[in-house]
């Protein structure tokens, strides 16, 4: 099963359409390369280097555990469960309530809102590209999506649904019994298969190609000069790559970036090492323009504010600023270029349909 077809199982475009588009895409790249070879107008430093391509091009496969390889049945079942509010104690909140595909798989709130409209103290992270993350949740307390998936369902402040009442509820819905059987033959509807199905769907939510990806592959004219210069600032003067690096623009690491509003100890509660006081996971920057507000506490509403934060080297919080944080002294033009680059990381719109849920 190829990656594109599995993604197609969750995003509704048909496999054939995607295959055709992909073929056309390759043709376009081929033409561009041929044209580029004969073109004398290419500006030096405005094209991706082989090092850029090695570092930032999409990996060939979506990472997935051997114990839960993705199949169309598993991804489809996971999608139903993801959109099903019956997974919450109130039967009113689904995973998609906070991880809303219409809002970059997040909720556009500074921090999440959970059971009984209670306001939580951390922002809803996007689920985009979580397959590529080595640690889940802002404090990285879970390593796998399978372990993460059951957390919010049971958390009192989030979906507030104990598993010992949820599993019988699902077992009572005949179509779910059939769908679980198709996805995990002979295993039944259990904590394990519920987690695995949700994780399979989440793994299928991968970023689509952006202007930056096309530019990396050599397509001319897709990324503005400003965005290309911004990539240079990103890797160079602004040193964003100290943390936001690689295809998914993250080091899978934890940093205290000096947020003035941060009273949350973050990763330190998991690993009591000084550097981790107030440290949180480096999020992906894929589709970042679609997921305001920003930071683990939703402190900033725009990417401009985020750039200003890093330009001044962060603010004081608990005297534990990550040593990679320094004043950048970026010019107005450099800031504008950096912003253009961040916006060039927005992928093509995903074609998502809300599924019809099995009824009892």
């Amino acid at each position: 099963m190829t990656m594109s077809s599995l993604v197609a199982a969750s995003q509704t475009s048909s496999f054939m359409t995607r295959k055709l588009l992909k073929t056309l895409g390759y043709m376009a790249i081929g033409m561009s390369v041929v044209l580029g070879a004969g073109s004398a107008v290419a500006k030096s430093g405005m094209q991706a280097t082989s090092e850029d391509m090695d570092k930032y091009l999409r990996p060939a496969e979506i990472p997935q555990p051997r114990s839960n390889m993705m199949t169309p049945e598993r991804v489809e079942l996971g999608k139903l469960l993801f959109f099903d509010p019956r997974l919450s104690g109130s039967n009113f909140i689904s995973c998609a309530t906070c991880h809303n595909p219409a809002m970059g798989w997040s909720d556009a709130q500074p921090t999440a809102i959970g059971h009984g409209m209670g306001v939580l103290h951390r922002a809803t992270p996007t689920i985009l590209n979580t397959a590529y993350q080595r640690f889940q949740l802002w404090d990285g307390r879970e390593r796998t999506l399978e372990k993460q998936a059951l957390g919010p369902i049971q958390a009192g402040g989030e979906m507030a649904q104990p598993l010992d009442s949820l599993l019988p509820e699902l077992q009572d819905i005949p179509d779910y019994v059939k769908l679980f059987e198709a996805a995990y033959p002979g295993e039944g509807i259990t904590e394990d298969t519920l987690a695995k199905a949700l994780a399979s769907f989440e793994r299928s939510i991968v970023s689509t190609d952006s202007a930056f990806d096309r530019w990396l592959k050599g397509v001319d004219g897709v990324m503005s000069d400003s965005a290309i210069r911004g990539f240079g600032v990103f890797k160079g003067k602004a040193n964003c790559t100290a943390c936001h690096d690689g295809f998914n623009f993250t080091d899978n690491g934890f940093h205290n970036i000096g947020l003035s509003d941060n009273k949350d100890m973050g990763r330190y509660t998991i690993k009591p090492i000084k550097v981790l006081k107030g440290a949180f996971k480096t999020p992906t920057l894929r589709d970042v323009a679609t997921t305001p507000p920003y930071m683990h506490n939703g402190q900033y509403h725009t990417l401009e504010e985020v750039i200003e934060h890093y330009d001044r080297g962060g603010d004081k919080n608990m005297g534990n600023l990550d040593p990679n944080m320094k004043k950048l002294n970026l010019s107005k033009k450099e800031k504008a270029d950096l912003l253009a680059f961040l916006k060039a990381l927005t992928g093509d719109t995903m074609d998502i349909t809300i599924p019809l849920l099995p009824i009892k």
Partner: protein
Amino acid sequence: MIYVNLKRFGIAVAAITLSATANAADYTITQSNKAFVKDSQQIEQMSIKAGDTIHFKNEDPFFHNIFSLSDLKTFDLGSYPAGESKSVTFDSPGEAEIECAIHPEMYMVIEVQ
């Protein structure tokens, strides 16, 4: 006679200690591309002898923070930049899990014999 015996015993102990110190080895493990590397190979496990010292050298263009919270040895070397090295001597036998606090994918076990 008793005095002499004790003295001999004392000398013997001193000799063993000296010999252990003389044979203690130094190893360098670099932090390269967010991995623990020894002799150009990424490693996840290595065996050393009690008394040996490991130098943790950062060769990445960003900070690392090596620590261990193992029963055998608890230490936090703090954050240090490219080119800097910090060392730890492992005095007793056992196993120590070593991590980078900033990049927890970096993980290795040192077995002290």
